[in-house]
């Protein structure tokens, strides 16, 4: 059954959700990385717990989105909301869960005084690019450069 928008509850992530977040990641990537999620979630909860969100359907965590507002990076002076980590349970895809999470996070970014929201998308991951495009995100002129060390 696909969740409709009204079934989805968005709330702040709590550390008791770590297991659920780890599971969603494992379903997506096939890797079990509990330590990695403890570290990441700890980081985001310290930075801005209001920007660490989960989506619930029938009291079950089915998606998460983590981010924060920063300024003064990459020459971007204005406060900018960054969506940095996200995942929706593959069994629940297409149920507007990602969209609901993004809406809630963007609302929070606005309250925090951000006027822009950014994210980095790996072009090979078409689902994420498609997802952000449909939310109205556009490719930005800022390009990441990398060099192997």
């Amino acid at each position: 059954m696909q969740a409709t928008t009204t079934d989805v509850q968005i709330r702040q992530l709590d550390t008791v959700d770590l297991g659920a977040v780890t599971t969603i990641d494992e379903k997506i990537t096939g890797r079990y990385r509990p330590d990695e999620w403890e570290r990441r979630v700890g980081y985001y909860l310290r930075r801005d717990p209001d920007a660490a969100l989960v989506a619930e359907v029938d009291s079950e965590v089915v998606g998460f989105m983590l981010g924060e507002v920063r300024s003064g990076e990459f020459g971007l002076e204005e406060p900018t909301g960054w969506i940095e980590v996200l995942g929706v349970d593959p069994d629940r895809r297409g149920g507007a869960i990602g969209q609901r999470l993004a809406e809630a996070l963007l609302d929070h970014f606005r309250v925090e005084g951000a006027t822009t929201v950014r994210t980095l998308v790996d072009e090979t991951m078409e689902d994420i690019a498609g997802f952000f495009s449909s939310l109205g995100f556009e490719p930005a002129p800022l390009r990441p450069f990398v060099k192997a060390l």
Partner: protein
Amino acid sequence: MRTREARLPGNYHDAVVKWRDTFIPDYDFLMDNWEKHFPKEPRFKLCAFRELGICNEIECGDDVGKPKITCPSDLGPDRARHLLGAIRAQASTEFGSIQQHRLTLARAQEETDQVWVLRMMAEELRHGYQMLHLLLEDDWSSVSDQTGPDLVEEILSMQTGSHVLGAFNIDFDSFVDNIVFCALIDRVGKYQLAMQRVSAYKPMAESMPKMLREEAFHLATGVVPMRRWATEAAEGDVYISMEMLQKAINKWLPRGLEMFGDERGGGSNVRMGFKPMKNAEAQDQYRAEVGKLVDDLNMRYLRARLPELGRNEADKLMEEIETERSTRHGVGWEDLIHLSHPHFFRRRGVPAFTMVGFEGETFEALDDYTAHLRRHLPESYLAGRDFRDYLETLKQVAAGELSAVDASRRMPSLRRVGGSCPCSRSVRWVSEEPLPAAADQPAS
């Protein structure tokens, strides 16, 4: 998020700093190592934060929809007294927990755990400071004989033990207590703060958002090491076992449940617009959340014990072990952690002094129950004064010399209003006369 930052007037600020120097002697260590552990995170600052732009209308109770109240004299005497009691209790809880954490902080095995606990202690100090700010910035003279400054002095001097009436101690026995306390007791704090976020008294509501953000970190300070310990236990670490975690949870969970107040109460808080939920409802949600934590620890343990299993296999195995109580691949039901029955080891509220066991079974004979408790509680705790006082009182109830209600009254209050006696090296939880909790009990 727009916040207003405020400092207490000079001498009060200094008094809190002095208090900090006494009870958080490692504060400088925290600040010196801040960048190492929390790079790029704003440094801790001792001040009060008030969130601006919050809801202006009362969100629950009889006056829902009316403007929130900004001045104590507009609350009316009943509500003002109720709220004043809540602020004092909240303040002393914040200061009191620091005194508890201090005792075993040095016993942490990992520097990260220790620094996280230290940061949490500094933030608890800020929470106390925030409550003092409420007492000082507003004029309480119309509802209390004590002036704001009197109230603050009283709270900060609780360490002398001068206000302590019926005192008892719940000592931290090891660093396991620091961590389990954060995961379980700060979680009660999360509920209280979340409920008070809708407070009809606007300065209280404005004080909550920042405190709640900090509380999320306090919970992580508890949950993350517990998860790590579950893994280490699975890998055969000799210092930490699942049984140890189970017993520490058994020690604190009943106290956590009781901090919500009597199961029949909480109605007056809702009516007065201070909280949106009655005690029992909040308590149930809390227990379910601790249940999730326990499930999570078990899965972390199982997968560390049997790393070759995939997720689906692990889920299936867990279900079999839990439902059949069988041993599979060397992992048995008793290797896992379980939530005690809500009536287990209770001394306040509806099940106070009933002899209910870990799984909800009832005991007729005192000796059997005592032996049962001894099997389920940490060894070091059994020798302490808290457990001895409880047993002593239970004995009188069992002998019919004391009613459960009177026995409960005799037990130290759920809301800590006393400080620590510096010489006793322990925190005192006391029952003091004008408690907000009293107004909630029983059915209100």
